[in-house]
């Protein structure tokens, strides 16, 4: 092998799917020859690859690759740039940074750290250097956009804490997996996760798919249950009704693991505290009752696991009256609440036949231990409540936190290695100037109107492609960009975001960089450049270093990208060990993880005893009010939502649908990865026929439209003129499009992002979302190690309502036709 031939391991450039594949890159004559799947140490390595990973070999060589620093000539958005030198780019950018810092303080510099699509995500070196920069300079970091919060908060309500858990959980499942809402099989999770689901199916596990669209997961499932968009809470309630009325629930589990038997004071809506019913009772303890109406204290020692019911044999459906106040168990209240949600009533809302609702509910119980796989498929303002209702059903079945029977939340990452590397070793500089501010888009918009507030004038787009991936592009054009003095984007290609930048800086692709990440399959991985950086592309370590030394914080950025990796491993993983395997991949011992060892082995499997069970849900304590799993929440009862339920949203509003009768559904394409891979010709070849808007043939016929016709997709925000495709997998009542295609595909017309509104108003915003802020801000400190505010969830820029959009599709009016 010559020095121009090599094999390296690199994180897949399409990391945003969350399969987190490591790819094996083969280089010949200094050029990437091919990419193939990578094997990990140990049996059942679990790592795989998909067609995007294979085609990622072409990303460094794409036609629209940014190879040189660019400076805007012309207006923002025109996409007109001139090539400049790095020296010029750095001088001009840092001059503007310094100017802004002098005028408005260093917090006027804002960094975008939205890591979702970035290789290595929040575990990457780049992510850590963003923190280092912000802490060294006291710059601001943009608060994460409110994505995924329907599931996050829904789980937190029931469990007290959001958690991710392992995609390997299907290996232990009993007899059924219900995939609810998402489309992971062969689509959004096309690599490792897919084979775990197929393996389970091949072993005889029944796969059920509940969804509003027919796609790969539906096609492969044993049973597909079509459901109307946004009505999932109703189906869950209907299924819960069946489980309760037919006595199918797991009483032992409910007593042992949940607050089902705990009495609720029906006057106040709060869980009864021992202090109100027992003379010596503590305000921290709770109360249950037995079948004879005797009440007893249920101790809740702070920070301790559940201590049992004492001598009391609690009645799950207890009701007692004390001092003129009626107390009911939360299970009894749930039963009363669900009585109205018969399978027939839910059918009228969801379109799921009553018989099917009952059948799915009964089988889910009979096939336990069973898994419900929720993968962020519900992106509606009512998703918190829908997810709560689904989780309530799982609790009744005893299918939470049990081996083989649990909830798969996202199925991404492994528990242990999320805590394997101490990334603070490079996040925190030696001279810590400030904790930096996490600034929401909302705050930025307010500051533009109010000069008394902290101003935000420089946006360094280190990560993400907000002008494509975040709805409400118009907000950028009208309000954000006009108020920024400087907008810089780090890029590997000319994205929609780059098109609006003042300067575009060429960054290295995953194939041109050093990286160490502790993640996939409990492994720590060493990545090195497969090829020399093309053109004048530079690592982010270099870019930060060059900026830093020109603004007075250079001493914090003296290391090269390669040198940072030694720090991450030798300091960040100090004291950690890796499992040693023999040639047959049997574990035979353990060895310390050092940078030199990792550099040689490339991948090492971390040997950490799990501090959190693999499903993240089977611990004994929960940070809920009662310290147990809860389906009744006294906090949310305060805003009228004691249980999961169905909240009204725009697409379920008949009045709103009068003018715009179709749900505007914007999806992510199978052959693209969010907005990436759209510049790879092979991906385009497969996807191009699907560009445009799709309608069910019945909706097209109603409008006198034919397949391939150019049509207008309209709503109050604009008009998108695109070709029509007839598709039978799109239900009546929906106009379907893909959001991945960039602006160039929409010459002289709106793109999907223009038609999508994310602005929350007091009318749209749900009270449930607001109730969580003070309670759950701290959970992110615990989970991610950084403070994070929650107020952005209901701000004017919330992707979480992504699919709660309406439109119509109309024939194009020719000249002279009446409107």
């Amino acid at each position, binding site marked *: 092998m010559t020095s121009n031939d090599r094999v390296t391991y690199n994180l897949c450039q399409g990391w945003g799917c969350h399969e987190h594949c490591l790819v094996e890159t083969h280089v010949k004559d200094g050029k990437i020859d091919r990419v193939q799947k990578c094997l990990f140490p140990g049996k059942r390595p679990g790592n795989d*690859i998909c067609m995007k990973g294979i085609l990622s070999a072409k990303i460094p060589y794409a036609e629209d690759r940014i190879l040189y620093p660019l400076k805007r000539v012309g207006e923002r958005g025109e996409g007109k740039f001139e090539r400049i030198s790095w020296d010029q780019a750095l001088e001009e950018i840092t001059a503007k940074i310094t100017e802004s810092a002098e005028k408005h303080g260093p917090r006027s510099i804002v960094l975008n750290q939205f890591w979702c699509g970035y290789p290595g995500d929040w575990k990457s070196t780049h992510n850590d250097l963003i923190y280092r920069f912000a802490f060294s300079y006291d710059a601001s970091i943009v608060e994460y956009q409110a994505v995924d919060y329907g599931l996050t908060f829904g789980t937190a309500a029931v469990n007290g804490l959001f958690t991710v858990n392992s995609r390997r959980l299907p290996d232990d499942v009993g007899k059924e997996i219900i995939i609810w809402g998402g489309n992971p099989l062969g689509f959004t999770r096309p690599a490792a996760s897919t084979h775990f689901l197929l*393996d389970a199916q091949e072993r005889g596990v029944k796969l059920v798919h509940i969804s509003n669209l027919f796609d790969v997961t539906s096609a492969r499932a044993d049973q597909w249950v079509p459901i109307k968009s946004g009505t999932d809470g109703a189906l869950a309630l209907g299924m819960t009704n069946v489980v309760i009325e037919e006595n199918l629930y797991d009483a032992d589990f409910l007593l042992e693991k949940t607050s089902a038997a705990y009495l609720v004071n029906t006057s106040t809506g709060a869980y009864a505290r021992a202090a109100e019913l027992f003379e010596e009772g503590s305000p921290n303890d709770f109360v249950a009752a037995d079948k004879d109406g005797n009440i007893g204290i249920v101790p809740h020692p702070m920070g301790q696991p559940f201590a049992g019911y004492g001598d009391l044999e609690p009645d799950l459906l207890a009701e007692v009256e004390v001092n003129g106040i009626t107390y009911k168990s939360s299970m009894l209240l749930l039963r009363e609440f669900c009585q109205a949600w018969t399978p027939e009533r839910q059918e009228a809302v969801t379109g799921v036949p009553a018989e099917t609702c009952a059948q799915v509910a009964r089988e889910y119980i009979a096939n336990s231990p069973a898994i419900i796989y929720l993968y962020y498929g519900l992106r509606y303002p009512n998703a918190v409540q829908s997810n709560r209702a689904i989780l309530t059903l799982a609790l009744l079945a005893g299918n939470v936190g049990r081996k083989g029977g649990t909830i798969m939340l996202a199925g991404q990452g492994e528990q242990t290695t999320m805590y394997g590397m101490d990334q603070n070793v490079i996040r925190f500089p030696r001279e810590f100037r400030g904790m930096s501010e996490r600034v929401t888009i909302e705050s930025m918009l307010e500051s533009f109107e109010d000069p008394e507030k902290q101003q935000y004038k420089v946006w360094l787009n280190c990560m993400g492609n907000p002008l494509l991936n975040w709805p409400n592009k118009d907000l950028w054009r009208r309000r954000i960009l006009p108020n920024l003095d400087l907008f810089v984007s780090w890029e590997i290609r000319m994205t929609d975001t780059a098109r609006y930048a003042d300067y575009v800086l060429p960054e290295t692709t995953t194939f041109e960089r050093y990286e160490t990440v502790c993640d996939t399959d409990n492994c720590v991985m060493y990545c090195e450049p497969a090829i020399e950086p093309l053109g004048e592309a530079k690592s982010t370590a270099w870019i930060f270093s060059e900026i830093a030394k020109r603004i007075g914080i250079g001493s914090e950025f003296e290391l090269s990208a390669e040198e940072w990796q030694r720090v991450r491993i030798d300091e960040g993983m100090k004291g950690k060990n890796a499992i040693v395997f023999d040639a047959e991949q049997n574990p035979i011992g353990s060895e310390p993880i050092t940078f030199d060892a990792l550099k040689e082995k490339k991948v090492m499997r971390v040997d950490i005893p799990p501090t959190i069970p693999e499903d993240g849900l089977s611990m004994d304590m929960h940070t809920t009010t009662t310290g147990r799993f809860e389906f009744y929440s006294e906090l949310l009862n305060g805003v009228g939502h004691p249980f999961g339920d169905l909240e009204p949203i725009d697409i379920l509003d008949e009045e709103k649908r009068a003018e715009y009768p179709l749900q505007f559904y914007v999806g992510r394409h199978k052959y693209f990865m969010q907005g990436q891979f759209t510049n790879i010709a092979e991906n385009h070849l497969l996807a191009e026929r699907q560009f445009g808007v799709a309608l069910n043939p019945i909706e097209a016929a109603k409008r006198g439209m034919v397949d391939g016709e150019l049509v207008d997709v309209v709503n109050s925000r604009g008009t998108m003129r695109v070709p029509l495709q007839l598709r039978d997998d799109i239900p009546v009542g929906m106009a379907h499009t893909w959001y991945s295609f960039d602006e160039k595909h929409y010459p002289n017309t709106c793109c999907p992002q223009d038609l999508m509104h994310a602005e929350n108003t007091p009318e749209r915003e749900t009270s449930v979302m607001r109730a969580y802020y003070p309670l759950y801000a701290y959970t992110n400190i615990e989970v991610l190690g950084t403070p994070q505010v929650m107020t952005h969830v209901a701000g004017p820029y919330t992707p979480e309502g992504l699919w709660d959009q309406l439109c119509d599709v109309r024939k194009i009016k020719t000249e002279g036709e009446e409107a």
Partner: protein
Amino acid sequence: MANTILVNMNRCTGCWTCSMACKGAHHLDVDEFWQYVRTIGGGEIDQPGGKWPNLYMKWMPVWKQKCAKCAGDDSTGFIPYSYCVYNCPAGALTYGDASDPTSEVSLRKQELLDKGFRVYEIPEWEETRKGVLYAENSI
């Protein structure tokens, strides 16, 4: 010697990894395919057959006669068909010597037959590569 690829039609998700792995490794032009994936359903890529809600869709990877019957290299342990078969994330592909009853492909074929699968080949007049078996069970 390994001469047969067995496709488990119940596992294929139409992801095109096999096709693109072949294309990438052999440096084919953008519109040149030695292997591709047929959607069985609505006649176009990823279009289902039937009318809502009675829909179905499945995928069939097809090897043209141009298939190079790659012998693999040391990076894949010299596994034949080491671009398509090796990289399939769904575990839908098996290869081996069909005339050897102890080979992986023969064992897998028997396993699927025992589960009630049908096993068939694409008819010769379609001029696809010989030696590809398809196994499927009531999709």
